[in-house]
């Protein structure tokens, strides 16, 4: 079946919606006339853009076709599958990124706590330091305890997963958020 010539013209311009079927028809055994037209349409474009017709005059297309005729047909190498190690690292990277965010959050909280501490008397041994700071910052001790519990449980989870992924270079952020009166109100 011959390709609709207007479709061929649109194909030359990459303006055809259904490219696959058109190319199939172009490459069909009885599509020689269409292939020649394809070549002439491209040549017209080149001539209008001040290109030359030297390749056409020299029969370059036929020469190249003849030159590769002896080559075996190409079979493209399959796209390399993602290496298992890289696939394995992906959740670890996500975990590290989220932990970094937690670390930043934790640091900012500690910094703000320390700033607050400089403006107020230092906690004395045995005093409920956190409870006092909680009041100063407008956060109740129970809210702070809940935040710390969630944070610590996150860190515990991370450490467990880190061990299972054997990532020895990643350090937990326990020191940043660790307080000494765990369990006290």
């Amino acid at each position, binding site marked *: 079946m011959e390709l609709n*010539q*207007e479709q061929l*013209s*649109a*194909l*030359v*311009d*990459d*303006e*055809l*919606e259904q*490219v*696959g079927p058109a*190319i199939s028809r*172009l*490459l069909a055994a009885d599509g020689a006339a269409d*292939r020649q*037209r*394809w*070549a*002439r*349409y*491209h*040549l*017209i*474009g*080149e*001539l*209008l*853009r001040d*290109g*030359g*017709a*030297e*390749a*056409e*005059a*020299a029969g*370059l*297309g036929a*020469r*190249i*076709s003849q*030159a*590769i*005729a002896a*080559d075996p*047909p*190409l*079979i*493209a*190498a399959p*796209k390399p599958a993602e290496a298992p190690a890289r696939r394995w690292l992906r959740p670890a990277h996500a975990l590290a990124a989220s932990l970094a965010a937690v670390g930043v959050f934790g640091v900012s909280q500690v910094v703000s706590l320390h700033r607050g501490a400089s403006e107020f008397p230092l906690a004395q041994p045995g005093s409920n330091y956190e409870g006092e700071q909680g009041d100063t910052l407008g956060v109740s001790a129970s809210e702070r305890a809940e935040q710390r519990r969630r944070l610590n449980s996150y860190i515990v989870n991370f450490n467990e997963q880190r061990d299972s992924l054997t990532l020895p270079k990643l350090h937990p952020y326990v020191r940043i958020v660790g307080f000494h009166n765990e369990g006290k109100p």
Partner: protein
Amino acid sequence: MGEHLADEELVARVQRGDKCAFDLLVLKYQHRIVKLVSRYVRNPADALDVTQEAFIKAYRALGNFRGESAFYTWLYRIAINTAKNHLSALGRRPREGDVYGADGEPISLDELQSDGDTPEKSLLVDEIKQTILKTMAALPEDLRTAITLREIEGLSYEEIADAMDCPIGTVRSRIFRAREALDAQLKPLIEQ
């Protein structure tokens, strides 16, 4: 419409073993590659040989082409490298304005004009160019504008439709009719 869709389809077919699809890519890009290579290799016959070599290299490397760049960009790089290698093999570096003989030495204009193409081929090329120019001049205004905006200005059908204030289908039809008029004059020259 997606740019280079036809190229992607053709490349995929070559990679599945269809050599004929590569012929279509050659027919599409041979003129541009000859023009490109001619900037490095001034001798017309050598430029054609280097172009042929570049296409053969491209075909043999196409199995590893992943489509990270457009096919033409990839082919362009191969052609430039092939041209530079050709000049290196001649022991020369490409310089702006250099005109080379096959031995790598600068050649005179007389030599250049007589080298490579036969007079018949040169005449044919000139005749083809003149025919296209004459036919373009004789085209109805709307057809000439449509094909000019497409081929010379590189506008998409949608942009041409905006510029000419007509539907895209009309643009498509006008470009096709312009090509048909040009092809009717070109075909006998090519086939002679």
